[in-house]
């Protein structure tokens, strides 16, 4: 135990004043290589280079690997004491000055005190991002118990993880300190905080659940949360396990980073999820969000993950049980529809972008072994992932869980979950042996082991296919009926060569509906067999009169006249249960699709046939679709789909179409008055199914076109009448979504203006129909100013409509209206709609001014969600792509984007990845073509890496990342990185210091609710210590607790009480207040203690003196706080 072994902690954007280890000043180095990914402004502009540099930078501070931004050199005195010295208390004094990430402050610019203004703050981040607001071991696998104290203005409430033990006024009675204790071992990454003048609602069904919302929203909160207890009951029942934490808090905040984020015993939601009883459409969405959040409480917060590679298990399980909730609450139809939707979405992404890999393994750590070479980012760390990829990752995870369920049955599945949970809760109550806590971490290995233990089944091949391997399966199916043999000859081919596809070998289910009934066949897909002979059960139509039995046992009469007289086949489905992650393109005759649509009861089959019927524009298809539309037992989403399909068919059948425009008479029959068919009934919306249909039909109808490719006059007038006669006075539900969809219908009816070249769009030459449309839109938009609708749905639709009018050349193309609506201060949905229009304008008009404006907003907008959204919309609808030439593509833009992803987005992982994505879309992987050739001409990438290196990244790249290199690198950083670390610390401060002090002072006083999270005590397990025992001469890094040799543990337990009795004695008295166990734990448990101070002060010295005063006050007043440990330092 000789030399200095640094401790690694993570922390970003903090200003660290001093670090003490066991009351000894400890030298430390603070270096965040992700601040600027590529140092030394090189002329490198290729994404390959950036990606590898970025991955290296993230790896260099990856807490999972035991690295971090903050390197503390443990004073040698402590090491000399050797074995006796096993408790390290780390005290860090730091401040966070106007953090750009990690914490988000929402301070509305109105009169009044902070509380009256509804100012609030909350923590946020993508994956493990807690280090943005306090130094910690920001890894999901480092568990410890927590004691948190937050001193806030008396008008504020601080909501954080764990139990609120007490709330105490400060001495001057102007502030309150919230004391939280979280006795369940929790990773720092699952810690969050939210402070604001929240209204408090105790759940009427569960008193340990508390809801918080912003002022004035309490009635909405009451309504929106009235359902939560049912979700609780559902999960507790299926998991046969109580909710693991003793309390649960939901906080609804403005400008949320994501709609739902879950942390230990609390979830932070977007305030926009709240709704009143009048709102239909938002209700299921909000409930789904609640259910997701709660599922993540069990798997994600309580049970954490061993490493990033095990993330899929948590996302999979939480997504899977959320699916079970969907099935129970919204019905099997909704559930199957959702599964199909998720599958389609994921398959589409994988086919386009290449595979999504759930469980990446990085053998050898060589670059060449990159498991996903098709991606332009590394999947080695959550923080280098594209956001879309991560979403698809979650999607695939829960789909795979469903596949496992198909394999081992739901009962076993739930038993496995129960086992994981009960092991974890046993472990969480064990305070003495922290290695037990590893039971609270799930790994792929442990999960698979419990599956095989519980079910006795081997799911190895399944895991290998879908988890260890990326990509999906693409089937093409066709068939022929052999009448002589009465055999169905099915041919199933696969495409496994194009990107994102893999070969499937194994069983596949095929369902054949014959005249005599429905039969399941399991075929074996093998290497070379394409054709499968399936014997048919029925002789072709002997007995016409007989009812036909369906899969579900129902017997129905069918009109069989459409059938092929020789064949008994009604329809065929391949993999009907979606038990393979696949895309199926199956060919069968149009009448078969029609039978499938009419008589197959599975909504997935119905949706598939609707999609297929688009290719068969015949009167028979029309009839089948119309019948489905009229059937009110049919699932409403299928009927919605049928509307759009019918519109497409009608357009294809334009010349032969008879009767009124498609759906018009249907709509009239369903929704208009009997006495006067041109007037729609007054709204009641009693039947939600009809409501959704009523909303959709006009939108679909507006897609109809006549021979001139215009929307038929009939249809347009019909929609205008719907708007005119819409009457919601007697409705207990709001019609805002309906009205918005009517505006959407108007938008859909627009067709390009007949333009004489380069004619300026003026009011005078406005087409008559368009004039009517424009009048409706202006009136609706103006009315919204006076009577805003819920979530401003109508404004959103109007903005889209105006953009469409511009795009079709009816009105002058001009982004200024959208730009004004996109400004900060509008409702987020409105902003997004306006930004979408600006993005579209930028592409169509190739406007560099607008592109600049957008990029400016990406850098400066207060709302993180908007920044993210702009970049992702630019990625989706890019102003130009790498394939095409564009005047926009110039060196300045390359530099700007490069700067954005290199250093401009270091505070937000997600945003940086968005920027990388955009860069990829615009310029591709290689050096952008618009750049001048580098001086030496084209240099190979490999050479470039050698030629231009930055000091931080160099070792990583030079040596390739093996475990050892990681460590040696760590040694390197303090040595060579010292100067650069100074740069990165001083840099931002230096840049902000020119700001006038006055402004800052103002900032201080105005942000009255200074969040003084005075101390965060961490009793961390001794994993890291254990490691140090082993690797004393290399860096401290936490090993997974499971690997820890038990001998170390015993040694630790037998060690005497920590020295420094004066300070620690006080600490223990305080902890003894909580429980005896706790007390004991404090003494005998080796632990690390971190003291943090956070204050929002700029001028360190000035405020430090104040702080000291305050602290001494606080100390004398609240002995219960862990502050006592700090007291000697104060007297110093």
């Amino acid at each position, binding site marked *: 135990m000789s030399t200095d072994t640094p401790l690694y902690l993570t922390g970003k954007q903090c200003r660290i004043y001093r670090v003490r280890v066991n009351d000894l000043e400890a030298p430390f180095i603070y270096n965040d290589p992700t601040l600027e990914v590529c140092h030394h402004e090189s002329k490198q502009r290729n994404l390959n280079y950036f990606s590898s540099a970025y991955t290296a930078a993230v790896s260099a501070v990856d807490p999972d690997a035991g690295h971090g931004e903050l390197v503390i050199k443990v004073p040698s005195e402590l090491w000399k004491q050797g074995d006796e010295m096993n408790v390290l208390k780390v005290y860090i004094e730091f401040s966070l000055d106007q953090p750009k990430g990690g914490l988000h402050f929402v301070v*509305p610019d109105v009169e009044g005190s902070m509380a*009256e203004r509804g100012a609030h703050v909350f923590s946020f981040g993508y994956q493990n991002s807690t280090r943005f607001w306090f130094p910690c071991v920001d890894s999901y696998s480092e568990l410890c118990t927590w004691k948190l104290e937050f001193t806030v203005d008396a008008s504020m409430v601080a909501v954080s993880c764990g139990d*609120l033990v007490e709330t105490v006024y400060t001495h001057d009675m102007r502030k309150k300190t919230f004391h939280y204790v979280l006795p369940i071992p929790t990773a720092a990454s699952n810690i969050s905080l939210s402070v604001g003048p929240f209204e408090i609602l105790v759940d009427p069904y569960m008193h340990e659940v*508390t809801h918080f919302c912003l002022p004035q929203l309490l009635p909405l909160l009451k309504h929106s949360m009235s359902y939560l207890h049912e979700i609780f009951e559902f999960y507790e029942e299926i998991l046969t396990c109580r909710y693991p934490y003793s309390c649960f808090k939901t906080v609804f905040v403005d400008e949320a980073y994501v709609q739902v984020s879950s942390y230990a015993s609390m979830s932070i939601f977007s305030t926009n999820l709240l709704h009143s009883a009048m709102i239909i459409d938002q209700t299921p969405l909000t409930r789904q969000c609640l259910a997701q959040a709660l599922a993540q409480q069990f798997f994600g917060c309580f049970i954490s993950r061993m490493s990033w590679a095990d993330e899929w298990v948590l996302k999979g399980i939480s997504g899977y049980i959320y699916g079970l909730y969907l099935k129970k609450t919204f019905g099997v139809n909704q559930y199957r529809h959702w599964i199909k939707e998720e599958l389609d979405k994921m398959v589409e992404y994988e086919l386009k972008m290449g595979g999504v890999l759930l469980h990446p393994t990085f053998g050898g750590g060589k670059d060449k072994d990159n498991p996903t070479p098709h991606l332009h980012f590394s999947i080695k760390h959550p923080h280098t992932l594209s956001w879309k990829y991560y979403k698809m990752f979650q999607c695939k995870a829960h789909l795979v869980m469903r596949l496992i369920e198909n394999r081992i049955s739901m009962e076993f599945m739930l038993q496995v979950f129960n086992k994981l949970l009960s092991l974890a809760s046993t472990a969480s109550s064990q305070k003495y042996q922290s290695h037990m806590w590893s039971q609270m971490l799930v790994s792929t290995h442990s999960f698979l082991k419990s599956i095989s233990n519980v079910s006795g089944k081997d799911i190895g091949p399944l895991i290998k296919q879908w988890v260890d391997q990326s990509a999906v399966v693409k089937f093409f199916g066709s068939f022929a009926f052999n009448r002589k043999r009465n055999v169905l000859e099915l041919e199933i081919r696969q495409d496994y060569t194009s990107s994102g596809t893999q070969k499937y070998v194994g069983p596949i289910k095929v369902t054949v509906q014959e005249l005599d009934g429905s039969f399941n066949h399991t075929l074996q897909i093998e290497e070379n067999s394409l054709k499968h002979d399936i014997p048919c059960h029925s002789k072709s139509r002997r007995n016409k009169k007989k009812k036909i039995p369906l899969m579900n046992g129902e017997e129905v009469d069918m009109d069989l006249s459409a059938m092929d007289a020789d064949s008994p086949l009604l329809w065929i489905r391949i993999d009907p249960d979606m038990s393979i992650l696949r895309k199926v393109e199956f060919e069968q005759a149009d009448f078969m699709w029609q039978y499938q649509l009419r008589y197959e009861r599975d909504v997935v089959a119905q949706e598939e046939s609707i999609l297929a019927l688009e290719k068969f524009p015949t009167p028979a298809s029309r009839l089948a679709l119309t019948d489905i539309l009229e059937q009110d037992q049919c699932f409403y989403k299928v009927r919605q789909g049928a509307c759009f399909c019918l519109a497409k068919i009608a357009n294809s059948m334009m010349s032969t179409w008879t009767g009124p425009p498609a759906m018009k008479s249907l709509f009239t029959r369903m929704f208009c008055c009997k006495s006067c068919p041109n007037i729609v009934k007054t709204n009641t919306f009693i039947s939600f199914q009809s409501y959704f249909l009523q909303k959709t039909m006009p939108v679909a109808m507006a897609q109809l076109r006549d021979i001139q490719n215009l929307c038929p006059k009939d249809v347009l007038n019909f929609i205008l009448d719907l708007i005119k006669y819409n009457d919601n006075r007697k409705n207990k539900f709001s019609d805002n979504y309906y009205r918005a969809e009517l505006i959407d219908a108007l938008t859909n009816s627009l067709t390009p203006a007949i333009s004489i070249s380069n004619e300026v769009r003026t*009011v005078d030459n406005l087409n008559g129909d368009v004039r009517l449309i*424009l009048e409706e839109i202006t009136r609706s938009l103006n009315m919204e100013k006076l*009577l805003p609708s819920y*979530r401003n749905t109508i404004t959103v639709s109007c903005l889209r409509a105006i953009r469409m009018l511009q795009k079709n050349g009816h009105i002058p193309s001009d982004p200024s209206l959208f730009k004004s609506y996109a400004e*900060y201060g509008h*409702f987020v949905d409105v902003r997004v709609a306006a930004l979408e229009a600006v993005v579209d304008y930028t592409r169509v008009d190739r406007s560099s001014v607008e592109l600049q404006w957008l990029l400016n907003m990406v850098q400066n907008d207060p709302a993180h969600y908007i920044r993210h959204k702009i970049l992702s919309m630019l990625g989706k609808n890019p102003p130009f792509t790498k394939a095409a030439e564009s005047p926009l593509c110039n060196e300045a833009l390359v530099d700007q984007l490069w700067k954005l992803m290199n250093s401009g987005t270091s505070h937000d992982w997600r945003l940086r990845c968005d920027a990388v994505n955009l860069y990829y879309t615009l310029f591709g992987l290689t050096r952008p073509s618009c750049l001048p050739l580098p001086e030496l001409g084209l240099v190979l990438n490999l050479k470039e890496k050698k030629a231009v290196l930055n000091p931080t990244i160099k070792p990583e790249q030079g040596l390739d990342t093996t475990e050892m290199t990681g460590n040696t690198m760590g040694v390197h950083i303090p040595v060579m990185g010292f100067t650069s670390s100074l740069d990165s610390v001083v840099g931002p401060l230096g840049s902000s210091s020119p700001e006038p002090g006055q402004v800052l002072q103002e900032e201080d006083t105005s942000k009255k609710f200074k969040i003084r999270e005075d101390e965060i005590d961490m009793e961390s397990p001794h994993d890291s210590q254990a490691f140090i025992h082993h690797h004393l001469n290399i860096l401290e890094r936490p090993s997974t607790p499971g690997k820890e040799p038990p001998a170390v543990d015993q040694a630790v337990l037998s060690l005497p009480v920590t020295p420094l009795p004066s300070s620690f004695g006080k600490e223990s008295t305080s902890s003894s207040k909580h429980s005896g166990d706790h007390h004991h734990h404090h003494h005998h448990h080796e632990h690390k203690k971190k003291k943090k101070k956070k204050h929002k002060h700029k001028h360190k010295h000035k405020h430090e003196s104040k702080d000291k005063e305050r602290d001494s006050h606080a100390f004398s007043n609240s002995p219960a706080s862990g502050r006592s440990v700090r007291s000697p330092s104060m007297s110093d």
Partner: protein
Amino acid sequence: MRESRSGCGKATSSPAENYQLARRRTLQVVVSSLLTECGFESAEKATVESLTEMIQSYISEVGRCAKAYCEHTARITPTLSDAVVTLNEMGFNVDTLPGYAKRSQRMVITAPPVTNAPVIPKALIAGQKRTHPSHIPSHFPEFPDPHTYIKTPTFREPVSDYQVVREKAASQRRDVERALTRFMAKTGETQSLFKDDVTAFPLIAERPSSIPYLSALLPSELELQTLEETDSSEQDDQTDSENTPDDPGADKENSVLLAGGVVPSVKVSEENMIDNPYLRPVKKPKVRRKK
């Protein structure tokens, strides 16, 4: 005499004024000539004015009295005898009048200029006047307008046809909305979709709000109102309640609730059954002074 009477009546319209001024001027001429007759060479304007006023009052009084006498005898037009009685009553010896009229030095006064007699505005005729029943002679005054003595409906029979009602409600609402939005657009800032004609399709300029989620999430008062009332509310109500939802800081209750530590203590009394740490009162700091 009738002329002077009507002259002093209420008249404000300009033809009536002209008429009056002309008579008045004639009276002034009369006064002046009488003064000349009496030997005055000049008179102050104010004096002439006072004398004119006096003479006018005198003549008016004569007219009024004569009218009264005639009406007293159930006639409607005064006769000579009425005038004579009146003059006598006012202490004027009528017998001297012929002599005075024939005096030698009297001056001839030109007749007042012919001006149109003021038109008496027609009374509002509402409904059909009743004709006299057979037992009332036709020379009796006509019946007054019916609205003066029997009830008059101020609304028409409501239309009960469903289609018409819907049609009307729809167009009424549309008109109100259009009028209102146009008014708002005219009185405030606007944005325009066209460059050539900024007044066509004016859009009320958007206003960024400090707390945009409030208006977007909270139901407007109108919606709340319709929710409460199952009856249909008047269309006009829309305009009344339009401005209210934007009112910031209307919620006094909230600001009270927000006043810091009051929240838990208030709630505890309400729901003392519930034990929730957020409802517990905030503890006072322990005072520990160094001794």
